[in-house]
Every structure is written in C-alpha cells, then in structure tokens.
C-alpha cells in the first residue's frame, strides 16, 4: 500500500515540477521543492493533509497548464487517501478479511480518481463564458450542493 502511496506522491510532484519547468517558473519550483521536503517529513508525522493543502494551492494559483494541475491534484488526492488508509491499517490491533478490506478500498479509490479525472478533463474542454451574476448564481448553487452533501453525510453518520 505504501508503494502505491509513494508512487502517487512522486506523480503529483513530477506533474507540478514539469509544469513549472515548462513555464519557466523557477520561484514556484523552489516552493514546490520546499513542499516536497515537507511532504517527506509529513508522512512520518501525520501532516499529509497539510502537504495536500499546499500542493493544491500550488496547483491552483500558479497559473500552469490545467491538465498538469489536474494530474497533480488527482495524484495528490490519491497520496492523501492511501497514506491515511495505511495509517489506519497499521494502527489496527487485528485485521480480518484483509483482502476484501483493501480490495474494496482500492476499487473505490480507482473509481473516484478515474471519474474525477474524466470530469475534470471534460470540464476543461467545455468553453463556458459567464457574466458576473451567472457566476455568483453558480457559486451559490455549488455551495448549497456541497452543504447539502455534507448535511446528508452527517445525518447518515449520526
């Protein structure tokens, strides 16, 4: 499991590094190196969410090719998930039906990554011009949708 997580970490870093090198954004590359170093430490100290947040910020605000940013985000998400799952499995006193447990997790993660990448690529390929009012309306709709999703999840968990 940790091998797959390391691979996801490398993919995420490589995608961003390639994007910065391609765009000749050397200062951003230095920032990425710092975040990569932080990521190596983060894995040992359970700071992976912090690394993922910074990686996402680097992808979002550095004005790099959108496809590479999407690849970095997707693989970063995979690393965040796999690291958390690895920690959960490691801390368990006893594991039963481990093949089914890990298999179902991998299947769900693969589905989420594939679906997310596909939707992302489709979204990047769709030209959409919005005026300010339409953008605000869409934003409100998105916030309401996310809030509804979170609320459903909370009621399901309680």
């Amino acid at each position, binding site marked *: 499991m940790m091998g797959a997580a390391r691979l996801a970490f490398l993919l995420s870093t490589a995608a961003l590094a390639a994007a910065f090198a391609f765009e000749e954004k050397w200062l951003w590359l230095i920032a990425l190196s710092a975040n990569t170093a932080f990521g190596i430490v983060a894995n040992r100290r359970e700071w992976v969410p912090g690394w993922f947040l910074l990686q996402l910020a680097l992808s979002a605000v550095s004005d790099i090719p959108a496809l590479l940013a999407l690849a970095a985000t997707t693989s970063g998400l995979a690393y965040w998930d796999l690291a958390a799952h690895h920690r959960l499995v490691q801390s368990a006193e006893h594991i039963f039906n481990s093949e089914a447990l890990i298999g179902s997790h991998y299947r*769900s993660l693969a589905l989420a990554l594939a679906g997310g990448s596909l*939707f992302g690529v489709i979204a*990047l390929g769709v030209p959409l011009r919005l005026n300010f009012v339409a*953008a605000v309306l869409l934003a409100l709709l998105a916030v309401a949708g996310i809030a509804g999703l979170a609320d459903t999840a909370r009621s399901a968990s309680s």
Partner: protein
Amino acid sequence: MKRAGFLTFLILALLAAGLALRDGGIVALSLPLITYLAIGLLQFPRSPRLDAYAHLSQSSATEGSIVGVSVRVRNPGPALSHLQIRDSVPAGLSIIQGARAALGSLAEGGSHEIMYAVRSTRGLYNFKGVEITASDPLTLFHRAFHHPIPRSLLVRPNLRRLRHVQLQPFRTGVHPGLYRARRGGPGVEFHGVRPFMAGDARRRINWKASARHGDSLFINEFEQERAVEIGIILDARSRSNVVAAGRSSFSSSVQAAASLSAFFLAQANRVGLMLYGSHLDWTVPGYGRVQRERIMRVLAKARVGHSRIFDRMKYLPTRLFPPQSQLIFISPVLREDVGFLRILRARRYPILVVSPDRISAEAEVLKGESDLDLAVRLARLEQSLITRSLTQAGIQRVVWDIAQPLEQAIEMQVGRPRRWLRAVGARNR
C-alpha cells in the same frame, strides 16, 4: 467525518477561488475531490444490521488468573466493506494475549470472532459493551453502534490454606462444630462421669467408677463440640494502610480476611464480615458456601477509603455482633485503637487481632534514608508496646510480616503446635 470535513473545506475553497479569479481551471481542480466525496457517500452503508455476542470463559476467578473473552459479530444485512470492532475492557484488567479490537470487512451473512485473554487483579469488573463502527470503503463517513452486552467478572482474592487457628470462644452455638462447648454430650474429648440414665449407650459405661460405687452405674461423658459465631472486621481506613514496592498492605489484609472466613466457614461456623473505611459494609453472619460467596464478593470489591465517622474505631457498631461472639480484627492497629479493643474485651468479646506488619513495608519504601534503622527500631518498640497492652487485656495478636505466607504466621502464633513439638513438650508461642 474529520476527513470528509477537510475535503469539503478544500472543495469550497477551490470553488471560491475559481469564481473569484474567474478561472475555470481552478474550478475544474475541485471535480476529483467532489467525485471522491460523492463515491464515499454513495458507498456508505445506509442501514447496516449487525448482531454482537460476547462471553467470558468464567464469571468468577481468583486474583492473577487468566480469563478468556470472546466477541462474535454477525452481519445478517448487506456486505460491509469497512468495519471496526472494539470491546470495552474495564480498567484494572490487562490484556496479555490477543486483541480486543479488529478491523476488516464482513460479507453478507458473514461473522467474525475476536478473542483475547486478560489477567485479573482483585475486583468486580463490568464490561460495558461492544462498539462497532461501519464506514464506507474510503473511510469518509462512519456509523457507530453500541451493543450493550452486560458481562461481569468477579475476581476474588487468593486464599491461603490455613491448617489450624486456635480460638478461645466464650460461647458456642447450637450447631455441631469443632470448638469445645464446656458441656457434656457427644464428642471426642473426655469431660466427666455421671450416673447412668435410661437410654444411655451401654458401651459408654465407666466400669471402674461403677465398681467403686457399688449398686449404681456411671457413664463417661464427652465434651460437646459446637460451631461458634465469628465476626471478621476488616480495617479499610486509608491511614492504616500503606503501599510499598507496588503492594498494598490492604491487599494482604483482604487476603487474610478471605482466608480466615473460608477457613471458619469450612468448619461449619457462622461467619459475618464487617468492612469499615470510607463506609460501613456489613455482611450478616451466615453458614456455608453461599455465605462464603457473599463474603468473597464483598472482599473482591473492597477498597481503602477515608471517612470522618469511621476514622476512629470507637464508632464501630459492635452491637451488630451477638454478645460474647468471637471477633477477629484484621488491622495494623494504630495506637488510638488499643483503648477501644480493650473496652471490647472488657465487654466479654473474645478477640483475635491479625496485624499485617506495616513497619517492614514502610521500611522497604524508605530504604536508603538516614536514621531508618533508628526509626524502624522505635516503630517496633511501639508495636511491641501495643501487643503487650493487648495481651494484658487478654487479646490474642498475630503480627504478620506480609513478605511471609499468612499460614506461617498464624501457625507460629495461634496455631496448634505440631505433633512432634507437643511430644517434646515445646510450645511454639
């Protein structure tokens, strides 16, 4: 929910940034996260049905013994891809083998059993139940179930096997026992002779005495042996107990109380128990195995405590004990307790005091301190003064060094001398 919350925060941040900067690329970055969150929610088990059963290999054990615990979880509902099972283990029990928690997945109709073994210290332990958490495969959303499966484990103190305890009861009961009643009747020890009466067994005729008195017959009478009423009083005051080298002198007192009550009940005596410390716990005197179990249950739960009322022995409600019944105090005996014990003896209660020796225990704690030898000598001097004062009042006292077995101390101080010692006329007091 922690991970789901973090993800929701990231999605909202990306959406906000994308709209603020009017950059579709940033909004597109949120789509993998939204898909991930949605898949977690879609695969979250809506209405899982789980049955849990648990049992202990024994509900009653002795101190230090190993007890097995098993928990079985069955899934009659749809398959659950991520399941956490955790049994609550009460504080005081240490797991020595196996695991009390497990992580895995359960197919439809499947079951899993977790087994572990605990080592027990004295006490009454109530297991609260089993916690089961079902999650989606991405562990974003959780649903927790608590299955209250009541189980209790009573860990009794270890008993020491006593051979003989010499008591001098003033009064005996009506039931047959092992203590001389100072009355003629059926028994073993010779008591005297009396004139023959109709119905007396002919084999009991004392022919020599009958020959001396001419025309009347005399028969041998034996001393009746009866059970006695015994009240065991256990001192649970925190100020009279010390903890040394990880062992409390109170644990030794509990062990002594348990061993003595088991010993006297096995001899068909009527035994009651009074525990005084933070409160008064009174077990009404009784006979037999049920009474033994009752006393063991109280002793298993016994803890030291402090109370203003029971801080001094003089407030002990001695009227609960029948007049002249045998009292056994298990207490280190503080200086101020002596007066009360003497008063009790003056009220014609025969008393035996078993004192765990706290001086050795305290000296063990203070090892290396300067003037320790002098302090130990002074404390021993005080102890011997207490013993002398009690002995002068007619109270038996056994000072028991808790490093030694209880039976050895009892045998040496109030036991019956060994046969070979009696043969040479030696006494072991």
